[in-house]
């Protein structure tokens, strides 16, 4: 953990006190370090998986920043979270890998690939409806409130009784689940 920037401890302590600038500097500065550590720990993982691990680590850090002890270095704290979240993601990938089937290549000239003018739009709307219906009520509520109605975080927090931090995390997770549902990975919910 010798690569830790000596400023991290001060930035993390300031972030606990609500200093958003110090928190942003810490996260931006730790980002390449986290990616490097994730690649070193799971060399067989793809770039998308590494990025998922890093994002989940940042979310978990955000939710557990009250656990950090300012007298201790930040790197072991961050790396500990990365290990847990990275292992979770790899477990999830392995579980789903057994249920996935590769689709055989289809010739580009196949008539089956031809679409009419409205077919794409109809298919998109149908798949979006199907993906939305696969989400939980909470995910739907969060997406509808923050992405469709574009309610501010403060107003949404008042309306739902959730904290702003919890809303941010819930929105991020709902978008992730919607994206996965749209590409056919509807079961990838935690």
């Amino acid at each position, binding site marked *: 953990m010798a690569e830790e920037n000596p400023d991290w401890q001060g930035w993390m302590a300031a972030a606990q006190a609500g200093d958003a600038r110090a928190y942003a500097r810490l996260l*931006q500065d730790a980002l390449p370090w986290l990616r490097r550590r994730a690649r070193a720990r799971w060399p067989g993982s793809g770039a998308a998986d590494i990025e998922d691990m890093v994002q989940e680590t940042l979310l978990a850090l955000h939710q557990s920043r009250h656990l950090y002890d300012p007298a201790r270095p930040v790197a072991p704290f961050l790396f500990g979270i990365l290990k847990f979240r990275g292992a979770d993601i790899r477990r999830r990938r392995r579980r789903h890998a057994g249920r996935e089937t590769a689709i055989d290549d289809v010739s580009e000239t196949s008539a089956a690939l031809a679409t009419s003018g409205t077919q794409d739009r109809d298919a998109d709307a149908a798949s979006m409806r199907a993906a939305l219906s696969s989400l939980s009520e909470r995910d739907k509520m969060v997406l509808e409130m923050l992405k469709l109605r574009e309610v501010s975080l403060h107003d949404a927090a008042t309306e739902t009784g959730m*904290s702003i931090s919890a809303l941010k995390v819930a929105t991020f997770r709902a978008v992730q689940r919607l994206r996965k549902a749209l590409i056919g990975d509807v079961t990838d919910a935690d």
Partner: protein
Amino acid sequence: MRTEELIASLTQDLTPVRRAAPPLALLLRWLAVTLPVLAMIVLAMGPRPDLAGVMAQPRFALAELLAGGTAVISAYAAFCAGRPDEPGWKLFLPVAASALWLLELGRQCFILSVQTHGGTLILHPDLMCVPVIALAGFVPAVAMVYLLRRSAMFRSAHACLCGALAAAAAAEAALPLFHAPDTMMTVLVWQMGSVMLFTLLGALGGRALLALRRRVPDPTAT
């Protein structure tokens, strides 16, 4: 969402957080609740008449020390388990403590069985110890879940298992102060069996409670 966008979203409207107490401070708080409760239970049940005499026996004192040690070490491990920067070996301390405790009880059982020509190997049903351990361990277990609610963010299954073992071991340490078992075999089977049962049930219940709490919006969280 790109990671840079996620960082921007997380840092926007950042509010201060109240730091969680370190594991040692949580352990002291847990002991501050557990010890008076157990003392009250012993007084309410009535200390056994020969308590002063058995306390002076090294065999009894060692078993009590190991039960208390297992409770304290397990509670400490429970408070460490939920923190990402605590090493994994601390989670195995309760395994070592409880193994030592069981070994000592087994050793005492063996010695007594030789001395009594197998008399201590007779197993009598001790139906009292199951509800008493559950009752005596209930408040320590509730205190444990309460103290773990903010700190068990990771490895929550380990935290609950260690926490339940701490509560069960604390109850088992109090039990011999007001209840005299018939034989060592009764202690090993009924009392230690109750500790294991309570640990498993407590771990499952504690995990469900912690999971339930995470689903409820926390007004103190930021």
